[in-house]
Protein backbone atom coordinates (compact mmCIF):
# COMPACT_ATOMS: atom_id res chain seq x y z
CA UNK A 1 0.00 0.00 0.00
CA UNK A 2 1.34 3.39 -0.93
CA UNK A 3 -0.74 6.05 0.81
CA UNK A 4 1.38 8.85 -0.60
CA UNK A 5 0.12 8.23 -4.15
CA UNK A 6 -3.51 8.79 -3.16
CA UNK A 7 -5.28 12.02 -2.47
CA UNK A 8 -5.30 12.58 1.27
CA UNK A 9 -8.57 12.03 3.14
CA UNK A 10 -7.81 14.99 5.35
CA UNK A 11 -5.43 17.84 4.70
CA UNK A 12 -4.41 20.99 6.50
CA UNK A 13 -2.53 23.25 4.09
CA UNK A 14 -0.73 26.10 5.84
CA UNK A 15 -3.75 26.06 8.15
CA UNK A 16 -3.72 29.00 10.53
CA UNK A 17 -6.08 30.02 13.30
CA UNK A 18 -5.94 33.26 15.21
CA UNK A 19 -8.00 34.28 18.21
CA UNK A 20 -7.63 38.06 18.41
CA UNK A 21 -3.89 38.74 18.45
CA UNK A 22 -3.06 35.19 19.41
CA UNK A 23 -2.01 32.76 16.68
CA UNK A 24 -2.86 29.32 18.05
CA UNK A 25 -2.24 27.31 14.88
CA UNK A 26 0.42 28.75 12.61
CA UNK A 27 0.76 27.55 9.01
CA UNK A 28 0.39 23.86 9.81
CA UNK A 29 0.61 21.21 7.09
CA UNK A 30 -0.82 17.81 7.88
CA UNK A 31 -2.27 15.02 5.76
CA UNK A 32 -3.96 11.73 6.53
CA UNK A 33 -4.15 9.24 3.65
CA UNK A 34 -6.30 6.13 3.34
CA UNK A 35 -4.82 3.20 5.23
CA UNK A 36 -2.47 5.12 7.48
CA UNK A 37 -2.46 5.94 11.17
CA UNK A 38 -1.10 9.42 11.89
CA UNK A 39 -0.33 10.60 15.42
CA UNK A 40 -0.70 14.25 16.40
CA UNK A 41 1.23 15.06 19.53
CA UNK A 42 2.23 18.16 21.45
CA UNK A 43 2.19 19.75 24.88
CA UNK A 44 -0.90 21.49 26.23
CA UNK A 45 -1.46 24.73 24.35
CA UNK A 46 0.50 23.51 21.31
CA UNK A 47 -2.62 23.88 19.13
CA UNK A 48 -3.72 20.25 18.76
CA UNK A 49 -7.34 20.80 19.78
CA UNK A 50 -7.74 23.88 17.59
CA UNK A 51 -6.27 22.01 14.61
CA UNK A 52 -8.61 19.05 15.21
CA UNK A 53 -11.59 21.41 15.49
CA UNK A 54 -10.66 22.89 12.11
CA UNK A 55 -10.28 19.43 10.58
CA UNK A 56 -13.68 18.42 11.94
CA UNK A 57 -15.20 21.54 10.39
CA UNK A 58 -16.17 23.03 13.76
CA UNK A 59 -13.88 26.03 13.35
CA UNK A 60 -12.97 27.93 10.20
CA UNK A 61 -9.27 28.60 9.52
CA UNK A 62 -8.15 32.26 9.65
CA UNK A 63 -5.61 31.48 6.94
CA UNK A 64 -4.58 28.57 4.73
CA UNK A 65 -7.12 25.84 4.22
CA UNK A 66 -8.52 22.60 5.52
CA UNK A 67 -9.88 19.93 3.20
CA UNK A 68 -11.77 16.75 3.96
CA UNK A 69 -12.10 14.20 1.18
CA UNK A 70 -10.94 16.84 -1.29
CA UNK A 71 -13.46 19.53 -0.32
CA UNK A 72 -14.01 22.04 2.47
CA UNK A 73 -15.51 20.50 5.64
CA UNK A 74 -19.32 20.44 5.52
CA UNK A 75 -22.31 18.48 6.76
CA UNK A 76 -21.72 16.06 3.90
CA UNK A 77 -18.09 15.41 4.81
CA UNK A 78 -19.16 15.04 8.46
CA UNK A 79 -21.10 11.89 7.56
CA UNK A 80 -17.88 10.21 6.37
CA UNK A 81 -16.06 10.96 9.57
CA UNK A 82 -15.90 9.07 12.86
CA UNK A 83 -14.88 11.10 15.90
CA UNK A 84 -14.10 9.59 19.29
CA UNK A 85 -13.60 12.30 21.90
CA UNK A 86 -11.60 11.59 25.04
CA UNK A 87 -14.84 11.89 27.01
CA UNK A 88 -16.19 9.11 24.71
CA UNK A 89 -19.36 11.07 23.86
CA UNK A 90 -21.74 8.35 25.09
CA UNK A 91 -25.10 9.03 26.74
CA UNK A 92 -24.57 7.62 30.22
CA UNK A 93 -28.30 7.27 30.96
CA UNK A 94 -28.92 5.18 27.85
CA UNK A 95 -28.00 1.54 27.33
CA UNK A 96 -25.25 0.46 24.94
CA UNK A 97 -27.86 -0.64 22.38
CA UNK A 98 -29.77 2.67 22.72
CA UNK A 99 -26.58 4.66 22.22
CA UNK A 100 -25.86 2.63 19.11
CA UNK A 101 -29.41 3.04 17.76
CA UNK A 102 -29.30 6.79 18.39
CA UNK A 103 -26.00 7.18 16.56
CA UNK A 104 -27.15 4.94 13.69
CA UNK A 105 -30.28 7.10 13.28
CA UNK A 106 -28.19 10.28 13.25
CA UNK A 107 -25.91 8.88 10.54
CA UNK A 108 -28.66 7.00 8.70
CA UNK A 109 -26.50 3.88 8.96
CA UNK A 110 -27.52 0.30 9.64
CA UNK A 111 -25.72 0.32 12.97
CA UNK A 112 -23.16 -2.12 14.27
CA UNK A 113 -23.42 -5.68 15.48
CA UNK A 114 -22.31 -5.97 19.08
CA UNK A 115 -20.18 -9.00 19.81
CA UNK A 116 -18.61 -10.75 22.75
CA UNK A 117 -18.66 -8.95 26.09
CA UNK A 118 -20.21 -5.93 24.41
CA UNK A 119 -23.19 -8.00 23.24
CA UNK A 120 -23.66 -9.28 26.79
CA UNK A 121 -23.70 -5.67 28.00
CA UNK A 122 -26.06 -4.35 25.30
CA UNK A 123 -28.90 -3.64 27.75
CA UNK A 124 -26.70 -2.21 30.50
CA UNK A 125 -26.69 1.53 31.14
CA UNK A 126 -23.42 3.02 29.94
CA UNK A 127 -22.76 4.59 33.35
CA UNK A 128 -22.79 1.12 34.96
CA UNK A 129 -20.08 -0.28 32.66
CA UNK A 130 -16.39 -0.50 33.50
CA UNK A 131 -14.25 1.96 31.55
CA UNK A 132 -12.74 -0.71 29.28
CA UNK A 133 -16.16 -1.80 28.07
CA UNK A 134 -17.35 1.81 27.76
CA UNK A 135 -14.36 2.49 25.50
CA UNK A 136 -15.20 -0.53 23.35
CA UNK A 137 -18.81 0.64 23.07
CA UNK A 138 -17.63 4.10 22.01
CA UNK A 139 -15.34 2.51 19.40
CA UNK A 140 -18.16 0.34 18.03
CA UNK A 141 -20.42 3.40 17.75
CA UNK A 142 -17.77 5.62 16.16
CA UNK A 143 -17.10 2.90 13.57
CA UNK A 144 -20.71 1.84 12.96
CA UNK A 145 -21.21 4.06 9.90
CA UNK A 146 -17.94 2.83 8.32
CA UNK A 147 -16.26 6.23 8.37
CA UNK A 148 -13.49 6.93 5.85
CA UNK A 149 -11.65 9.05 8.37
CA UNK A 150 -11.36 8.31 12.08
CA UNK A 151 -10.31 10.99 14.55
CA UNK A 152 -9.45 9.54 17.96
CA UNK A 153 -8.56 11.57 21.03
CA UNK A 154 -6.60 9.61 23.68
CA UNK A 155 -8.24 6.40 22.43
CA UNK A 156 -6.92 4.00 25.08
CA UNK A 157 -6.68 6.21 28.14
CA UNK A 158 -7.27 4.38 31.42
CA UNK A 159 -7.43 0.77 30.19
CA UNK A 160 -5.10 -2.15 30.96
CA UNK A 161 -2.36 -3.25 28.52
CA UNK A 162 -4.27 -6.15 26.98
CA UNK A 163 -7.43 -4.06 26.52
CA UNK A 164 -5.24 -1.34 24.98
CA UNK A 165 -3.73 -3.85 22.55
CA UNK A 166 -7.25 -5.03 21.58
CA UNK A 167 -8.39 -1.44 20.93
CA UNK A 168 -5.32 -0.95 18.74
CA UNK A 169 -6.27 -4.11 16.88
CA UNK A 170 -9.55 -2.38 16.03
CA UNK A 171 -7.77 0.82 14.98
CA UNK A 172 -5.33 -1.12 12.78
CA UNK A 173 -8.14 -3.19 11.29
CA UNK A 174 -9.97 0.00 10.28
CA UNK A 175 -6.81 1.31 8.62
CA UNK A 176 -6.27 -1.99 6.82
CA UNK A 177 -9.86 -1.74 5.53
CA UNK A 178 -8.89 1.62 4.01
CA UNK A 179 -9.81 4.21 6.63
CA UNK A 180 -7.41 7.01 7.49
CA UNK A 181 -6.84 7.45 11.21
CA UNK A 182 -5.71 10.53 13.12
CA UNK A 183 -4.82 9.90 16.77
CA UNK A 184 -4.06 12.60 19.30
CA UNK A 185 -2.44 11.47 22.51
CA UNK A 186 -0.37 12.61 25.47
CA UNK A 187 1.08 9.14 25.80
CA UNK A 188 4.16 8.60 23.72
CA UNK A 189 3.96 4.80 23.95
CA UNK A 190 0.62 5.17 22.24
CA UNK A 191 2.03 7.63 19.71
CA UNK A 192 4.74 5.12 18.84
CA UNK A 193 2.01 2.77 17.52
CA UNK A 194 1.30 5.23 14.68
CA UNK A 195 2.81 5.03 11.17
CA UNK A 196 3.71 8.69 11.14
CA UNK A 197 3.79 11.48 13.69
CA UNK A 198 3.29 15.23 13.57
CA UNK A 199 4.72 17.09 16.56
CA UNK A 200 3.17 20.49 17.29
CA UNK A 201 4.91 23.08 19.45
CA UNK A 202 3.58 26.60 19.95
CA UNK A 203 1.18 26.22 17.02
CA UNK A 204 3.79 25.10 14.48
CA UNK A 205 4.98 21.74 13.21
CA UNK A 206 8.18 21.12 15.19
CA UNK A 207 8.83 17.74 13.58
CA UNK A 208 7.07 15.24 11.34
CA UNK A 209 7.85 11.75 10.10
CA UNK A 210 8.27 8.25 11.44
CA UNK A 211 9.40 7.82 15.01
CA UNK A 212 12.92 6.89 13.85
CA UNK A 213 13.05 9.98 11.62
CA UNK A 214 11.97 12.24 14.47
CA UNK A 215 14.47 10.82 16.95
CA UNK A 216 17.18 10.94 14.26
CA UNK A 217 20.60 11.20 15.85
CA UNK A 218 19.46 12.97 19.01
CA UNK A 219 21.43 11.88 22.06
CA UNK A 220 21.17 11.80 25.82
CA UNK A 221 23.78 11.43 28.51
CA UNK A 222 23.53 8.32 30.66
CA UNK A 223 24.94 8.42 34.18
CA UNK A 224 25.63 5.23 36.13
CA UNK A 225 26.67 5.65 39.72
CA UNK A 226 26.26 3.86 43.05
CA UNK A 227 25.13 7.19 44.54
CA UNK A 228 22.40 8.22 42.14
CA UNK A 229 20.75 10.41 44.79
CA UNK A 230 23.75 12.74 45.02
CA UNK A 231 24.22 12.74 41.24
CA UNK A 232 20.54 13.49 40.67
CA UNK A 233 20.49 16.38 43.13
CA UNK A 234 23.68 17.85 41.64
CA UNK A 235 22.41 17.77 38.05
CA UNK A 236 18.89 18.88 39.04
CA UNK A 237 20.21 21.89 40.94
CA UNK A 238 22.41 22.75 37.94
CA UNK A 239 19.16 23.13 35.97
CA UNK A 240 19.67 20.11 33.70
CA UNK A 241 16.56 18.15 32.65
CA UNK A 242 17.71 15.03 34.48
CA UNK A 243 15.49 11.97 34.77
CA UNK A 244 15.71 8.77 36.78
CA UNK A 245 15.25 5.38 35.11
CA UNK A 246 15.50 2.68 37.75
CA UNK A 247 18.83 3.69 39.31
CA UNK A 248 20.32 5.16 36.16
CA UNK A 249 20.15 8.87 35.33
CA UNK A 250 19.58 10.31 31.88
CA UNK A 251 20.01 13.88 30.68
CA UNK A 252 18.58 14.49 27.17
CA UNK A 253 20.47 16.81 24.88
CA UNK A 254 23.31 17.40 27.35
CA UNK A 255 27.06 17.38 26.72
CA UNK A 256 28.83 14.45 28.48
CA UNK A 257 31.81 16.64 29.37
CA UNK A 258 29.55 19.14 31.16
CA UNK A 259 27.80 16.40 33.11
CA UNK A 260 31.13 14.79 33.96
CA UNK A 261 32.54 18.08 35.24
CA UNK A 262 29.46 18.90 37.34
CA UNK A 263 29.60 15.48 38.96
CA UNK A 264 33.33 15.45 39.65
CA UNK A 265 33.15 19.00 41.09
CA UNK A 266 30.48 17.68 43.48
CA UNK A 267 32.67 14.68 44.36
CA UNK A 268 30.32 12.15 42.77
CA UNK A 269 31.95 9.14 41.09
CA UNK A 270 30.04 8.13 37.97
CA UNK A 271 30.32 6.57 34.55
CA UNK A 272 29.07 9.09 31.99
CA UNK A 273 28.29 8.07 28.42
CA UNK A 274 26.55 9.54 25.40
CA UNK A 275 23.67 7.28 24.27
CA UNK A 276 20.90 7.54 21.64
CA UNK A 277 17.96 9.57 22.95
CA UNK A 278 14.59 7.91 23.50
CA UNK A 279 11.52 9.14 21.66
CA UNK A 280 10.23 10.77 24.83
CA UNK A 281 13.50 12.60 25.43
CA UNK A 282 13.54 13.86 21.86
CA UNK A 283 9.92 14.93 22.14
CA UNK A 284 10.44 16.89 25.34
CA UNK A 285 13.33 18.78 23.76
CA UNK A 286 11.23 19.51 20.62
CA UNK A 287 8.08 20.48 22.50
CA UNK A 288 9.66 22.65 25.16
Amino acid sequence: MSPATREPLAAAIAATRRFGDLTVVDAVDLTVAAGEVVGLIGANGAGKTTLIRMLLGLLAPSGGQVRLFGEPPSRRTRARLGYLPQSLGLYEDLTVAENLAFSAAAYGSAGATLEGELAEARDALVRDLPLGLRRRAAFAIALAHHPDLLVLDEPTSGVDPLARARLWETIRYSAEQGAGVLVTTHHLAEASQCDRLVVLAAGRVAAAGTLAEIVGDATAVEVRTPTWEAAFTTLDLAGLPVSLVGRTLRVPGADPATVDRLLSDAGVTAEVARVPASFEETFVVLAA
Partner: protein
Amino acid sequence: MTAWGCQGLRVRYGDTVALEDVSLEVPAGTVAAVVGGDGAGKTTLLRALAGTVRPAAGTVRRPDRRRLGYVSAGPGVWTDLTVDENLSFAGRAYGLTADDLEVRVGALLERTGLAAARDRLAGRLSGGMRQKLALAMAVAHEPELLVLDEPTTGVDPVSRAELWRLLASAAADGAAVVVATTYLDEAERAATVLVLDRGRALLAGTPDEVLAATPGLVVEGAARPEGVPSWRRGARWRAWSPDGSAPPGTTPVAIDLEDAAIVAQLRHDRGGPGGSRRGGPPANRGRAA
Protein backbone atom coordinates in the same frame (compact mmCIF):
# COMPACT_ATOMS: atom_id res chain seq x y z
CA MET B 1 16.90 0.94 55.74
CA THR B 2 13.25 1.60 56.40
CA ALA B 3 10.82 0.01 54.01
CA TRP B 4 7.17 1.01 53.98
CA GLY B 5 4.51 -1.04 52.25
CA CYS B 6 2.08 -3.86 52.77
CA GLN B 7 2.02 -7.64 53.04
CA GLY B 8 -0.78 -10.02 52.06
CA LEU B 9 -3.28 -7.20 51.79
CA ARG B 10 -6.97 -7.96 51.29
CA VAL B 11 -9.55 -5.19 51.00
CA ARG B 12 -13.28 -5.73 50.64
CA TYR B 13 -16.01 -3.25 49.73
CA GLY B 14 -19.14 -5.09 50.91
CA ASP B 15 -19.14 -8.39 49.02
CA THR B 16 -16.64 -7.18 46.44
CA VAL B 17 -13.01 -8.13 46.94
CA ALA B 18 -11.07 -5.07 45.76
CA LEU B 19 -7.61 -6.44 46.61
CA GLU B 20 -6.51 -10.00 47.30
CA ASP B 21 -3.12 -10.97 48.69
CA VAL B 22 -1.24 -7.90 47.45
CA SER B 23 2.23 -7.13 48.79
CA LEU B 24 4.44 -4.13 48.09
CA GLU B 25 7.72 -3.06 49.64
CA VAL B 26 9.00 0.48 49.14
CA PRO B 27 12.43 1.19 50.64
CA ALA B 28 13.36 4.78 51.48
CA GLY B 29 14.86 6.59 48.50
CA THR B 30 13.10 4.54 45.84
CA VAL B 31 10.14 4.95 43.50
CA ALA B 32 7.63 2.09 43.15
CA ALA B 33 5.10 2.16 40.30
CA VAL B 34 1.66 0.59 40.69
CA VAL B 35 0.19 -0.09 37.26
CA GLY B 36 -3.22 -1.24 36.07
CA GLY B 37 -6.31 -0.20 34.17
CA ASP B 38 -9.48 1.30 35.57
CA GLY B 39 -10.80 -0.99 38.32
CA ALA B 40 -7.54 -2.92 38.82
CA GLY B 41 -7.27 -1.87 42.47
CA LYS B 42 -4.60 0.85 42.28
CA THR B 43 -6.57 3.46 44.22
CA THR B 44 -7.61 0.95 46.88
CA LEU B 45 -3.98 -0.08 47.40
CA LEU B 46 -2.84 3.53 47.65
CA ARG B 47 -5.63 4.37 50.10
CA ALA B 48 -4.68 1.38 52.22
CA LEU B 49 -1.06 2.59 52.24
CA ALA B 50 -2.21 6.07 53.19
CA GLY B 51 -4.42 4.64 55.92
CA THR B 52 -7.80 5.77 54.59
CA VAL B 53 -9.02 2.22 53.84
CA ARG B 54 -9.06 -0.52 56.46
CA PRO B 55 -7.80 -3.88 55.17
CA ALA B 56 -9.77 -7.08 55.86
CA ALA B 57 -6.49 -8.98 56.11
CA GLY B 58 -2.78 -8.36 55.85
CA THR B 59 -0.50 -5.71 57.29
CA VAL B 60 0.41 -2.17 56.27
CA ARG B 61 3.61 -0.43 57.35
CA ARG B 62 3.40 3.32 57.05
CA PRO B 63 4.87 6.23 58.94
CA ASP B 64 2.89 8.45 61.28
CA ARG B 65 0.32 10.55 59.42
CA ARG B 66 2.52 13.64 59.84
CA ARG B 67 5.31 11.90 57.93
CA LEU B 68 3.07 10.84 55.05
CA GLY B 69 2.17 12.71 51.86
CA TYR B 70 -0.82 11.60 49.80
CA VAL B 71 -2.21 12.99 46.56
CA SER B 72 -5.53 11.46 45.49
CA ALA B 73 -6.61 11.25 41.86
CA GLY B 74 -8.37 14.41 40.71
CA PRO B 75 -7.58 18.07 41.32
CA GLY B 76 -5.97 17.69 44.76
CA VAL B 77 -5.72 21.46 45.21
CA TRP B 78 -8.05 24.18 46.49
CA THR B 79 -9.14 25.81 43.26
CA ASP B 80 -10.30 29.04 44.97
CA LEU B 81 -6.95 29.64 46.64
CA THR B 82 -3.81 30.93 44.95
CA VAL B 83 -0.75 28.74 44.40
CA ASP B 84 0.95 30.44 47.35
CA GLU B 85 -2.07 30.02 49.61
CA ASN B 86 -2.39 26.33 48.71
CA LEU B 87 1.24 25.69 49.65
CA SER B 88 1.06 27.69 52.87
CA PHE B 89 -2.16 25.97 53.87
CA ALA B 90 -0.66 22.52 53.27
CA GLY B 91 2.52 23.45 55.13
CA ARG B 92 0.61 24.76 58.15
CA ALA B 93 -1.65 21.72 58.20
CA TYR B 94 1.49 19.62 58.67
CA GLY B 95 2.73 21.89 61.46
CA LEU B 96 5.54 23.81 59.73
CA THR B 97 6.56 26.99 61.57
CA ALA B 98 6.17 30.35 59.82
CA ASP B 99 9.93 30.63 59.15
CA ASP B 100 10.29 27.06 57.88
CA LEU B 101 7.19 27.57 55.78
CA GLU B 102 8.55 30.62 54.00
CA VAL B 103 11.80 28.90 53.09
CA ARG B 104 10.09 25.68 52.05
CA VAL B 105 7.40 27.39 49.94
CA GLY B 106 10.09 29.43 48.17
CA ALA B 107 12.12 26.31 47.40
CA LEU B 108 9.07 24.37 46.21
CA LEU B 109 7.90 27.20 43.93
CA GLU B 110 11.38 27.30 42.43
CA ARG B 111 11.66 23.55 41.99
CA THR B 112 8.21 23.12 40.43
CA GLY B 113 8.58 26.10 38.11
CA LEU B 114 5.45 27.61 39.66
CA ALA B 115 7.16 30.76 41.00
CA ALA B 116 5.79 32.94 38.20
CA ALA B 117 2.27 31.63 38.91
CA ARG B 118 2.38 32.00 42.72
CA ASP B 119 -0.46 34.54 42.82
CA ARG B 120 -2.66 32.70 40.33
CA LEU B 121 -5.78 30.85 41.49
CA ALA B 122 -5.13 27.11 41.41
CA GLY B 123 -8.38 26.66 39.49
CA ARG B 124 -6.85 28.61 36.62
CA LEU B 125 -3.74 26.45 36.25
CA SER B 126 -3.27 23.94 33.44
CA GLY B 127 -3.67 20.25 34.36
CA GLY B 128 0.09 19.72 34.46
CA MET B 129 0.72 22.78 36.67
CA ARG B 130 -2.10 21.75 38.99
CA GLN B 131 -0.56 18.30 39.42
CA LYS B 132 2.81 19.89 40.15
CA LEU B 133 1.16 22.07 42.78
CA ALA B 134 -0.58 19.05 44.36
CA LEU B 135 2.77 17.24 44.45
CA ALA B 136 4.50 20.27 45.97
CA MET B 137 1.77 20.40 48.66
CA ALA B 138 2.23 16.72 49.45
CA VAL B 139 6.01 17.12 49.93
CA ALA B 140 5.86 20.44 51.81
CA HIS B 141 6.58 18.65 55.11
CA GLU B 142 9.25 16.34 53.59
CA PRO B 143 7.31 13.10 54.15
CA GLU B 144 8.99 9.72 54.54
CA LEU B 145 6.32 8.06 52.42
CA LEU B 146 4.83 9.83 49.41
CA VAL B 147 1.75 8.24 47.80
CA LEU B 148 0.47 9.60 44.47
CA ASP B 149 -2.61 8.39 42.64
CA GLU B 150 -2.25 8.83 38.86
CA PRO B 151 -0.49 12.20 38.96
CA THR B 152 0.21 12.05 35.22
CA THR B 153 -3.23 11.09 33.90
CA GLY B 154 -4.35 13.69 31.37
CA VAL B 155 -1.02 15.51 31.72
CA ASP B 156 0.98 16.40 28.62
CA PRO B 157 4.37 14.74 28.03
CA VAL B 158 6.42 17.81 28.93
CA SER B 159 4.66 18.22 32.30
CA ARG B 160 4.83 14.46 32.78
CA ALA B 161 8.61 14.51 32.46
CA GLU B 162 8.74 17.36 34.99
CA LEU B 163 6.48 15.47 37.41
CA TRP B 164 8.72 12.42 37.22
CA ARG B 165 11.74 14.64 37.85
CA LEU B 166 10.00 15.93 40.98
CA LEU B 167 9.21 12.37 42.11
CA ALA B 168 12.82 11.36 41.60
CA SER B 169 13.92 14.41 43.50
CA ALA B 170 11.71 13.44 46.47
CA ALA B 171 13.28 9.95 46.35
CA ALA B 172 16.78 11.45 46.12
CA ASP B 173 15.94 13.37 49.32
CA GLY B 174 15.14 10.02 50.96
CA ALA B 175 11.39 9.58 50.56
CA ALA B 176 9.79 6.25 49.66
CA VAL B 177 7.56 7.07 46.69
CA VAL B 178 4.56 5.07 45.45
CA VAL B 179 2.99 6.25 42.22
CA ALA B 180 -0.01 4.80 40.38
CA THR B 181 -0.24 5.01 36.60
CA THR B 182 -2.08 3.30 33.76
CA TYR B 183 0.99 3.40 31.51
CA LEU B 184 3.81 0.89 31.64
CA ASP B 185 6.36 3.07 29.87
CA GLU B 186 6.25 5.30 32.96
CA ALA B 187 6.78 2.30 35.22
CA GLU B 188 10.08 1.60 33.46
CA ARG B 189 11.49 4.62 35.29
CA ALA B 190 10.66 3.16 38.70
CA ALA B 191 12.93 0.96 40.83
CA THR B 192 10.11 -1.58 41.22
CA VAL B 193 6.83 -2.19 39.47
CA LEU B 194 3.62 -3.87 40.65
CA VAL B 195 1.06 -4.62 37.94
CA LEU B 196 -2.47 -5.13 39.27
CA ASP B 197 -5.30 -6.85 37.43
CA ARG B 198 -8.75 -7.16 39.00
CA GLY B 199 -7.37 -6.76 42.50
CA ARG B 200 -4.50 -9.23 42.19
CA ALA B 201 -0.79 -8.82 41.59
CA LEU B 202 -0.13 -9.83 38.01
CA LEU B 203 3.58 -8.95 38.00
CA ALA B 204 5.97 -7.63 40.62
CA GLY B 205 9.68 -6.86 40.89
CA THR B 206 12.27 -4.62 39.33
CA PRO B 207 11.60 -3.96 35.63
CA ASP B 208 14.51 -6.30 34.76
CA GLU B 209 13.17 -9.06 37.02
CA VAL B 210 9.70 -8.75 35.49
CA LEU B 211 11.09 -9.01 31.97
CA ALA B 212 13.33 -11.94 32.86
CA ALA B 213 10.44 -13.82 34.49
CA THR B 214 8.28 -13.75 31.37
CA PRO B 215 8.03 -17.37 30.19
CA GLY B 216 8.12 -18.61 26.60
CA LEU B 217 9.01 -16.32 23.73
CA VAL B 218 7.56 -13.08 22.36
CA VAL B 219 7.85 -12.84 18.59
CA GLU B 220 6.99 -10.27 15.95
CA GLY B 221 5.79 -10.61 12.38
CA ALA B 222 4.07 -8.75 9.55
CA ALA B 223 0.97 -10.98 9.69
CA ARG B 224 -1.02 -12.43 12.57
CA PRO B 225 0.78 -15.64 13.59
CA GLU B 226 -1.36 -18.81 13.69
CA GLY B 227 -2.11 -20.82 16.79
CA VAL B 228 -0.65 -18.50 19.43
CA PRO B 229 -2.11 -15.51 21.31
CA SER B 230 -1.28 -12.31 19.45
CA TRP B 231 -1.66 -8.55 19.69
CA ARG B 232 -0.82 -5.46 17.64
CA ARG B 233 2.31 -3.38 18.06
CA GLY B 234 2.17 -0.55 15.58
CA ALA B 235 1.67 -1.87 12.07
CA ARG B 236 3.07 -5.27 13.09
CA TRP B 237 1.86 -8.23 15.13
CA ARG B 238 3.37 -9.58 18.29
CA ALA B 239 2.63 -13.03 19.64
CA TRP B 240 3.47 -15.10 22.65
CA SER B 241 4.75 -18.60 22.09
CA PRO B 242 4.40 -20.50 25.40
CA ASP B 243 6.77 -23.31 24.32
CA GLY B 244 9.49 -20.91 23.19
CA SER B 245 9.40 -21.75 19.48
CA ALA B 246 9.03 -18.98 16.89
CA PRO B 247 6.00 -19.58 14.61
CA PRO B 248 6.71 -19.35 10.83
CA GLY B 249 7.18 -15.80 9.58
CA THR B 250 8.09 -14.38 12.99
CA THR B 251 11.27 -13.40 14.75
CA PRO B 252 11.94 -13.08 18.50
CA VAL B 253 11.93 -9.53 19.90
CA ALA B 254 13.33 -7.92 23.03
CA ILE B 255 10.27 -7.39 25.22
CA ASP B 256 9.29 -4.38 27.28
CA LEU B 257 6.98 -4.13 30.31
CA GLU B 258 3.96 -3.67 28.06
CA ASP B 259 4.63 -7.07 26.43
CA ALA B 260 5.32 -8.65 29.82
CA ALA B 261 1.98 -7.38 31.18
CA ILE B 262 0.09 -8.56 28.10
CA VAL B 263 1.66 -12.05 28.36
CA ALA B 264 0.83 -12.18 32.07
CA GLN B 265 -2.77 -11.18 31.38
CA LEU B 266 -3.07 -13.74 28.58
CA ARG B 267 -1.72 -16.48 30.85
CA HIS B 268 -4.05 -15.44 33.65
CA ASP B 269 -7.08 -15.35 31.36
CA ARG B 270 -6.26 -18.69 29.76
CA GLY B 271 -6.09 -20.24 33.18
CA GLY B 272 -3.30 -22.54 32.02
CA PRO B 273 -2.51 -24.11 28.64
CA GLY B 274 -5.51 -24.86 26.44
CA GLY B 275 -8.02 -22.71 28.32
CA SER B 276 -9.12 -19.54 26.59
CA ARG B 277 -11.39 -16.86 27.95
CA ARG B 278 -10.37 -13.86 25.92
CA GLY B 279 -6.87 -14.66 24.66
CA GLY B 280 -6.16 -14.99 20.97
CA PRO B 281 -9.44 -14.06 19.27
CA PRO B 282 -9.65 -14.98 15.59
CA ALA B 283 -8.98 -12.11 13.20
CA ASN B 284 -11.87 -9.66 12.74
CA ARG B 285 -13.76 -10.80 15.81
CA GLY B 286 -15.63 -8.10 17.69
CA ARG B 287 -15.35 -5.53 14.94
CA ALA B 288 -18.08 -3.10 14.11
CA ALA B 289 -17.28 -3.42 10.41
